[in-house]
Structure formats: C-alpha cells, structure tokens
C-alpha cells in the first residue's frame, strides 16, 4: 500500500485507445466550452454550470477501463463518463437547457443526471452523498455474484464530508468491489487544499481505511487509465476498494459565474502547460498514431457534431407542466 508514488506508465496505451481518448476528451471539452462560454452567457442554460476543463482525462481514462456492467457514479466534473457510455451530446445539452429530452426530463439540471440502463447513477447536490450509495451498489454486486465493480468520483473537497468517511470505511470493512477516484483539482469552490485538510495528499487518507491508495497524474490519460485498470482489477478480484487520487487543476472558476480571482494566476499558467488534451495529441503525433492534420480533422468533426447537438437540443420542447405531478411515486 503506497500513498506516495506518482505513476505514469504506458499500460493501456496504443493507437486505438489514444483515438478513443481523444474523441471523448475533446467532445467533453467542446460541449462544456459551448455550455459555459456561449449558451450560458446567452441565457440558454438554466441553473448553475460546473465544468471539468483540464480534468477530462480522469473521467475518460477511467471509464474507458470499465466494463459496460460496471456501475459509475461520476461527480459534477466527469461528463465524459456519460459520453463514453453513449449518451448523445444533444441529450446533454437538453439536460442543461431544462428540456424534456434531457436525462432527467427537466426535473433536474446539469450533471445531476443518471440512467440505470447505462449503469450511471445521478449525484445529488450534497457532496459525497454518492460515496455510501456507491458502496451499496458494490455490495449488491458482491451479493448477486456479479463480476462487476463500482467506480465513484469525487473532488478533494468532498472528502471533508461525513458521508465520504462513512462510505469509505463501510466499503473497506465489507471488502466491496469499488474504485474511489478523487479529482484533486486543488480547489473546492474558493477553498484551497490547505484550508480543506491538514494532510498533504488525499491518498494519505487511504491508510485510515486500510485501502490501497495511489497518486496519479490526472492530466495524463495514459496514467489515469493504467492506474484505473490496476484499481479495477484489484476490486474485481475481490480484494476490496482502491483509492486513486488524480492530481489535476480546475482551469475555470467553480461555476460559470465565478471568475476565480482567488486563484493565483501563476497556477493557471503552470497547469495550462499540462493540458491533458494537448499532451495526448503530442503523444499521438510522437507515436505516429495520428498526424496533426488528422487531429485537426477530428477537432472539426467534433465542432460540427456539437453544433448539431446544440441545434437539436434548442429545438426540443420544455417539459409539459401537466407532467409535474408524475413519478413522485411508482404509478399503478
């Protein structure tokens, strides 16, 4: 059990994986940019907007390592988990615009979405509340003899909550097949790590639960996927939970209305050099898995795909008020 070594291997690498990763990191980036920088400012988005700019490698790298039957509980900055599982960009825009075609049919907004057919659970706002819930899904997998694991993401700030502690402890005592992934983007709203906890790494908390914990370069999709694979294998083999702390940085304000003036600008500069998409592309070119032109073509295709998705969503109707009272309980 090591809580300190940084891991960046080339396991899981290869052209196919790189291409997949590029598609989903780019798609997430483009959708979120569109939402935060365009649609939100145009007043077309309802409610708050929280994006994962700079953190895309984490949800992409880990979800690509999961089996379709594995249960995912993404945080509010892990949109790619939905994309990898096949949710169309159009439905995501519809979700953010409060349309009936959104995953929650206008009942909830932004990343508060899920679909049990896709084995993705919807967060509630209260941070870390999914941690015990994810433990419960993992318990069900063990109970039912399913060959599956549950993956649950959360920010470093969310580890301060009691729910987080109770879920971590319970899962470990019960040796449940669950992989915990911390998106350590170093801020929780305006609160830096140092005002959030008095340990240096979230991984330092693994020992409190007897859970193996690794620190991962969260801006390297190869590192993330390799670590995720190790963690998933560990959990799937019946060895209990595994904690990955993916170090990254929140390259925006907390939400679309926050200009992050409390973050030292140098940090943005520093981390922009570590952008996961740029790094992935450089690697692809270096490994000759793709040419610059090819990559430019992929960018253009994604822009077009997203253009169409926005248009589709804008044409979707708002929910019919007549449905307001439906589905509070199971209908007869």
């Amino acid at each position, binding site marked *: 059990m090591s809580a300190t070594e940084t891991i960046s291997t080339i396991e899981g690498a290869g052209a196919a994986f790189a291409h997949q990763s590029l598609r989903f990191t780019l798609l997430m980036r483009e959708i979120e940019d569109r939402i935060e920088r365009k649609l939100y400012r145009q007043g077309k988005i309802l409610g708050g907007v929280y994006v994962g700019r700079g953190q895309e490698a984490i949800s992409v790298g880990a979800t690509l390592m999961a089996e379709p039957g594995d*249960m995912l509980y993404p945080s509010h900055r892990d949109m790619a988990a939905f994309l990898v599982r096949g949710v169309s960009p159009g439905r995501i825009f519809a979700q953010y615009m409060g349309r009936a075609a959104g*995953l*929650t*049919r206008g*009942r*909830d907004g932004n990343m*508060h*979405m*899920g*679909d*049990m057919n896709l084995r993705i*659970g*919807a967060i*509630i*706002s*209260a941070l870390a*509340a999914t*941690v*015990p*819930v*994810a*433990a*419960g*899904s*993992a*318990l*069900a*997998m063990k*109970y*039912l003899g399913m060959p599956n694991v*549950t993956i649950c993401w959360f920010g470093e700030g969310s580890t301060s909550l*009691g*729910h987080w502690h*109770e*879920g971590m*402890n*319970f899962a470990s*005592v*019960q040796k449940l097949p669950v992989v915990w992934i911390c998106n350590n983007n170093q801020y929780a709203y305006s609160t830096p790590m140092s005002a959030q906890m008095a340990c240096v790494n979230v991984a330092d908390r693994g020992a409190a639960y007897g859970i193996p914990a690794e620190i991962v370069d969260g801006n390297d999709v190869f590192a993330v996927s390799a670590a995720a694979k190790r963690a998933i294998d560990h959990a799937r083999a019946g060895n209990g939970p595994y904690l990955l702390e993916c170090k990254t940085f929140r390259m925006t304000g907390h939400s679309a209305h926050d200009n992050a003036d409390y973050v030292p600008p140098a940090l943005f500069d520093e981390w922009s050099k570590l952008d996961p998409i740029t790094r992935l592309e450089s690697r692809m070119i270096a490994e000759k898995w793709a040419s610059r032109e090819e990559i430019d073509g992929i960018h253009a295709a994604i822009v077009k795909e997203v253009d169409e998705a926005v248009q589709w969503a804008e044409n979707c109707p708002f929910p019919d008020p007549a449905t307001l009272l439906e*589905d*509070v*309980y*199971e209908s007869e």
Partner: protein
Amino acid sequence: MVATYIEAIRQGLWEEMERDPNVFLIGEDIGVYGGAFKVTAGFHEKFGDRRVVDTPISEAAIAGAAIGASLMGLRPVAEMQFADFITCAFDQIVNFAAKCRYRWGAAVPIVIRAPSGGGVHGGPFHSQNPEMWFVRTPGLKVVAPATAYDAKGLIKSAIRDNDPVLFFEHKGLYRRIKEELPAEEYCVPIGKARVAREGRDLSIITYGAMVWTALSAAEQLAAEGIEAEVIDLRTLLPLDREAVCSSVKKTSKALLLHEDTRTGGMAGELAVTITESVFDYLDGPVVRVTAPDTPVPFSQTLEEAFLPNAGHVVEKARWLHRY
C-alpha cells in the same frame, strides 16, 4: 398463533426473506447479536452474513448503502438502532432516496425500520417520534402500525413497495400487545387507514401506540354514552384522506391525537385536510391531544406528564361532545 407486535415484525421479515432472495437486512448489531431489541434474533443463523449485514456505526452509510443496493435491484431493509439516530442518515433519506424516482426515474425500494416512541424511560434520544420529518418530504412513504396484525402486514407491503418506506415501529408496543395472526400469508396495503372502533359521536384520529390510548378512552366514553369512532391511520404518507373525511362526515367532530409533540405534528395535516374537505359537516372545533412542545423527558414523573393518556382524551372528547 398468538404473536406480539415484535414477533409479528419478525415474522414479516422472515417470510419476505424466504420469499425473495433479493431481500436483505442491514444495520448495527443485527447479526449474531440479533439487534438491540432482538427483532432479528435468529436471522443470522438462518440467512448468514450475506443477507444479514452487520455494519460499523454509520447511519448515513447504512441508508446510503441501502439506496445503492436497491438501485441494483436488491430490496434492503435497514435498521436504525433507535429511530432517534435517523437524524444521522437524514440527507440520504430526504435528499437521495426521496427524490431519485422523480429526478431520473430510478426506483429506490428500501425500507428503513426505526423503533420510535416513548413510555420506556428512554429519555430525549431513545423516545422520539420522528415521523413528521418525513411526512413532509414528498417521495417517501411513512408507515406506523399500531397492531401486531398490521405490523406484520405492513412490513411485508413495505418490503414489496417500489418506493422508499419509513417503518416506525413503536418500541413501547413491542411486547405490550399480542393477538392471533392468520395462519395464511397476508399483506396490509400501504395508504389505507382502518376503523379501529366504530362510533357515531366523534372521531378520534390517531396512529401508533396512541390507537390503544384512543380505544381505552373510547371505552370510558361509551360508559357515559358517548360513542367515539377511532381511526387508526396506519400509514401517514400517503395519507388516507378519504378515510379521515368519511369518518368526520359521519360524526361531525374530530379529535386528533398523537404521541408526537404538538407544534408541527400530524394533527395539523389532519386538521387542514378536514377543514378543506368536510368543513360543512363539522359541528365543533377540530381539536388535538398531543405531547407538549418539549424534548421527551427521562424521569417517570415528567414522562408521565408528557405523554398523552386516555384521561386527557376522555376529557377533551367530553368537551367536544358537549360542544
């Protein structure tokens, strides 16, 4: 066979566990120990670690794990060691479980069993009646049986229900009441009140342990020629408004009774339901008999003064009858 209230709950749990392999129990000290009140004594021996899950002291994790397991198709029955500790699982219940179906269509078929109620010198933290924290939360169902028959029939229905059900079992009734239960299997539907005693002069509407208080008051009143009807709500949410209103239509007078403290108690919801729907039938004020607005006190002299009793009900009923 004659069964106590607690034995009835045990039977209901046992039968459902035998019937459906996806039903399992989760809670503190419920395994080898059999639970603080011994509700699950013998279950671990029969069903093993897998289906009787002993947990660390983590009410939020218990509720959360139940939710997560239910999303995968299981039917968890979680035990709070005392209903009072449900406050530690509050966010999971009122924000997670209650809203999943409405938000994203996900069913959360969990049951949370919570031994509630006073009269056992349990003091402020082992005697509370927490039902109203949940009755006001759309998406939950809240059940509070008064009889052994209903306790068994309702725990079975709760387990089969596809929505989250809070099951408040009154610890003061556990070993105090018993009755003959049918040999054949039965369920009691959630959402249906019961006429515990017919009467024409006034309606006493209540639930849980207070049903017995109401019945004993009704006996005394009958001796004076006042025939009280006693409505046992059985389910608090969804509330059987029809049963409430039809009794009041008949008697024209309503006395609302609960062991829970006064302000913000179930009496309010009943009163507004009555005035909204059958105001014209009313022949006197809707009144309530409840515990006062204090924490539940520990000492016997105080707790006795705190708990509503048949005397209070008789007095208020007489007044209402004369009105």
